[in-house]
């Protein structure tokens, strides 16, 4: 179908974008890469009166080395994130998860910031941001604020970004030398994750010294498996990893849908976490 009519604004700065959102009221929506919003518009599941296109805002592009963190503009595409030498060197888990987003065409166009702000519970990057302790810079009429990942993801498709605010960038603490693996189960090509596990580990000798684990689609937002992280410290065998991964589903209340009931999702969380950690650690 053809989208319903809307007014189109293409700001060139973040301040102009915020002004356009304020002027547009609650019915204004940001269009980044558009790979989530365009299908919504086409199917007329949403009919915003104003579209604010942020794709020409230079400040929201680019990946920069900020010393102990890598700062990624919200408008950087998935393709640019996955191939960035800075990301691959310091944020191996983000690169691994981003390679799994949709397909080439969508990765060429869709943006990391858009995926974060859309906050689909099956999205591949939110659990990475949560597990790695990322922080989000948000601009609004009152200026800018920084929100930790633990407070950014609020509920299904809901984040800390208000209707008159713009996600400008995401800062990820460097995890240099950490290895990573993203283990995703989906039924068909292009499909969203039924469940996925994001694991990154720092090895010391043959054992895991530190671990960060995020889970995709195990609740209304991403989940960090802190009990597993703690249990993995010192693990050097497959048996130790498997024992730690047994705690992956603890305290979760996963959604039930046609693809999986809650019990199956919990089983997947344990199994995929075990596989992701083993592959990240190089232990078999």
């Amino acid at each position, binding site marked *: 179908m053809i989208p*319903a009519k*809307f007014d*189109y604004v*293409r700001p060139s700065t973040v301040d102009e974008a915020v002004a356009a959102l304020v002027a547009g009221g609650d019915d204004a929506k940001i269009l980044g890469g558009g790979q989530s919003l*365009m299908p919504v518009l086409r199917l007329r599941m949403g009919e915003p009166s104003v579209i604010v*296109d942020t794709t020409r805002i230079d400040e929201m592009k680019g990946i920069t080395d900020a010393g102990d963190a890598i700062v990624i503009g919200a408008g950087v595409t998935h393709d640019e994130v996955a191939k960035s030498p800075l990301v691959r060197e310091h944020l191996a888990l983000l690169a691994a998860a981003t390679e799994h987003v949709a397909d080439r*065409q*969508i990765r*060429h*166009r869709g943006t990391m910031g858009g995926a974060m702000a859309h906050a689909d519970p099956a999205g591949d990057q939110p659990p990475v941001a949560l597990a790695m302790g990322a922080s989000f810079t948000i601009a609004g009429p009152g200026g800018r604020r920084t929100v930790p990942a633990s407070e950014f993801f609020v509920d299904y498709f809901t984040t800390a970004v208000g209707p008159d605010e713009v996600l400008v960038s995401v800062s990820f603490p460097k995890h240099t030398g950490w290895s990573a693996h993203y283990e995703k189960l989906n039924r068909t090509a292009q499909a969203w994750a039924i469940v996925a596990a994001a694991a990154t580990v720092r090895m010391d000798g043959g054992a895991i010294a530190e671990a960060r684990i995020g889970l995709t689609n195990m609740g209304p937002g991403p989940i960090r498996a802190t009990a597993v992280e703690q249990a993995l410290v010192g693990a050097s065998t497959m048996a130790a990893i498997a024992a730690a991964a047994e705690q992956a589903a603890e305290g979760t209340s996963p959604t039930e849908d046609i693809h999986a009931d809650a019990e199956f999702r919990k089983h997947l969380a344990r199994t995929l976490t075990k596989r992701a950690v083993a592959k990240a650690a190089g232990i078999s």
Partner: protein
Amino acid sequence: MQHINVTVDGTSYEAEVEPRTLLVHWLREGVGKVGTVVGCDTSNCGACTVLLDGRSVKSCSVLAVQADGCEVTTIQGLSTGDDWHPVQTAFKECHGLQCGYCTPGMVMAAVDLLNENPSPSEEEIRDGIHGNLCRCTGYHNIVKSVQYAAELMGGRK
């Protein structure tokens, strides 16, 4: 209405478009590039794939106004006169199509993949075209076509 200036298959076009116009609809109805087809309403099928500033995109998922100032290559811009693009030749030689509906998008996706990776493995080809659906072939001959295209373009053997 928004004024746009887009280069399509090497020719510059100026137009007034409604902001809600999808790039694929403008290409077909505004520029006459009917080789680029619409296959679904869900961003899944990839039949409408074109190159936008050299990278593959699904033109149903981009607004025409977003292509303002950009360069678009459609399936109709691949050949030079009577000389087909090697990917087109390979699809013909390897019978990489049956009904042909997915072919414009499949060819554009393959061109984009080979631009980045001139000698992809079979697995890389299958991963590279997984944004494109074909309901006839089971993909077997499409993968063979991309492998042969890589050979024609000097990337293999």
